[in-house]
């Protein structure tokens, strides 16, 4: 047990240092070219209100989250409820008054498809 504890602990810190080094060594990402953004009305967004076809408006930006839903930490039901809706409030309070993390913020832009008109 002692040996298991020691080797697992050493491997853990090696892996954490590896992730840190990997992040340091990666060249910064080129900022994506900004295409002319599509504009959607809330009515249009409301048509995509299912887990299989899920748009959300958060802080004036429209996201197509269909492909992301299965990856969300909490159960599918919690987030799918917000499909087709203005979800800024829910995003910032996470239903229980906790905002999402900077990590979550960094995930969102990948799913951006336009802005609310």
């Amino acid at each position, binding site marked *: 047990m002692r040996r298991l504890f020691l080797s697992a602990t050493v*491997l853990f810190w090696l892996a954490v240092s590896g992730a840190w080094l990997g992040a340091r060594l990666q060249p910064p990402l080129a900022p994506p070219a900004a295409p002319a953004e599509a504009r959607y009305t809330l009515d249009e967004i409301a048509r995509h209100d299912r887990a299989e076809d899920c748009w959300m408006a958060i802080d004036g930006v429209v996201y197509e989250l269909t492909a992301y839903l299965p990856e969300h930490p909490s159960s599918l039901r919690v987030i799918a409820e917000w499909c087709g809706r203005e979800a800024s409030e829910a995003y910032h309070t996470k239903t229980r008054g906790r905002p999402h993390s900077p990590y979550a913020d960094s995930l969102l832009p990948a799913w951006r498809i336009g802005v609310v008109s």
Partner: protein
Amino acid sequence: MSAAPAALRRGGSLVAAPAVLLALLAACLGWAWPAELGGWRALSIVCAWAGTALLAGSLLLMVRAARLAALFGGLDAQYRWHHRSGTVAYVLLLAHPLTLAADAWAESPVRAWQVLAPWAQHWTVWLGWLALLLLMAGLAATFSLHLPYRRWRALHYLAGAGVVTGLIHVWALLGEAGPLWLLLPLAALALGWRLLGSDLGLAARPYRVRSVVPHAAGLIEAVLEPCGPRMAVTPGQFVFAAFGDGAHFHGCGEFHPFTVSGIGADGALAVGIKALGPCSRHVQALEPGVTVRLEGPFGGFLAERAAGPQLWLAGGVGITPFMAALRAGPLTQPTTLLYFHRSAQDAAYLDELRQLAAADPLLTLVSEAADGPPPMLAARLAEVPGLAGRSAQLCGPAPLIQAARDALLRHGMPAAAIHFELFDFR
């Protein structure tokens, strides 16, 4: 440290502890199984829940209560599973953030580092880190054998704090209780029992010191009489004792395990206490009238004695369980007792043992002074008639037990016939 049949005879089972752990695992993984996820993410969640379930189980197996210990086949077997489940849980929980990062690594190493770096994250994840670091510190102390016992135990509690912090991390992330309905009360009960029931002694029974007799250099024997309901103890079992105050004596108040060395018909229990550290040295000044709180009884050493001839081997204060058995009445099987002690002044109970041997034709006593594992151990064992056909009961310091076990195996004694008790749980 006795073998399976003894545990079964006492109504407990050696598979009870792994069965409880498996049930907790199944409950948590059944609830949280990430069916709609795949890859590293799914692995991370499985590791997280498996680790959480085992941590809660490990906490349950830390509870020191006579009934529970009997259910799990003895306190030593229970503690062995406590160690195993805690360590395996820790390894699984180390894998949990790493596999989460591995999932993000596919996207980019920067993303992977963001998953791990607490400052890029929310307080729920800080709690995860805090829990892991507490577990790490607690376990590091657990595995440092050279720490003094009191510091060792204080640091070991860090691991308990890690479990609680980890459970709060899960609750905060989950946003609902889920399996925590099971795990949180379990953890609270286990820690509560440990702190209030065991360490403060609310679950202990009141006894009083009737007499104190010095038996050798740095070894006293105290007879304790019950002030209320008495415990049913059999030879080979031990109790946890905390000595309180008397007219001139102030006990250290901590619970320490001592093997019962004699069981009176009136429910009185004798314990032989050797000065092995601060508290047991202090107890050498014990006086009649001091109050004692006892918990137990625990253990099943000597419970399984096969019908055939016996080999008993005692080192130093490890003679106490054999004293209880010999004082309980004449033997029913031919028994050779090898008793090793450091020097003549250290040989506790030797006169009484000689009288017992003279009165009981079935008992052969061999006593010898030696410092450390006796050089003559192999020779003494070889002189025991029909050695390989006996069943062995060993009690003493770990190096002596190890040397004796090896020698007995070499002499052809089957491993299942060798039973032993160590005076340390670490």
